[in-house]
């Protein structure tokens, strides 16, 4: 779905980016399933990008969760100052 939108040369809407963010986070981060022989790296850059798009919805105080995810991604990327 994201591919279809991005093929038109535009960013996904905040709502679609947020849904994608929540799916990726629930799948790759929250499930925390150990994988012995497989690389299970988390794409923090993807989380940072998606949370940035999601935050464009400007829901103010209701956006705490997306802000948290963005700060988490930034800290994992070593951008501590931005994360603060």
């Amino acid at each position, binding site marked *: *779905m994201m*591919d*279809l*939108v991005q093929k*038109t040369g535009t960013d*996904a*809407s905040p*709502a*679609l980016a*947020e*849904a*994608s963010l*929540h*799916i990726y986070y*629930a*799948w790759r981060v*929250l*499930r925390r*399933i150990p994988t012995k022989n497989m690389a299970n790296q988390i794409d923090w850059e993807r989380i940072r990008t998606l949370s940035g798009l999601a935050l464009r919805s400007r*829901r*103010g*105080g*209701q*956006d*705490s*969760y*997306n802000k948290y995810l963005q700060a988490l991604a930034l800290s994992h990327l070593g951008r501590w100052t931005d994360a603060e």
Partner: protein
Amino acid sequence: MENLSRARSTQFFNTFSAHVHANAILKLLGFLDQGNLVDIATFSARALADVDTTLRTVRYDAAGPAIRGEEDIDMLRSVRSKLLLKLKPIVDLKQDALTQWESFKSESGFVVVARKLLEEAQLSGKGSDYATKKPSSTPKK
């Protein structure tokens, strides 16, 4: 509806405003013509996104202890269940989403499909249910 969104505080988080917003949308959906796919998807997507984000904020994680009262969570889960019950089966939602995208470039249908699929993946617990399943470019009749 836009005014209701703007009425929220930009400074603090409030579970009740998400609940009121979702309930208002739920009632509104009852008045809309079922053929009005874009409006139904737009309102459903907005309400589901609000409730989902609020639920995620009030919990540490899916299985962890609540940081707010159980009442808040039950209240939000209840309105979320009612919203999901209003939706068509996933096959129809996917078809509607593609129609809305191809006709109006509206992404709301995709948002509803994504939220519904996330719900199903979380219920099943299977990693493969989270992976991308690319929709066909033209809806099947």
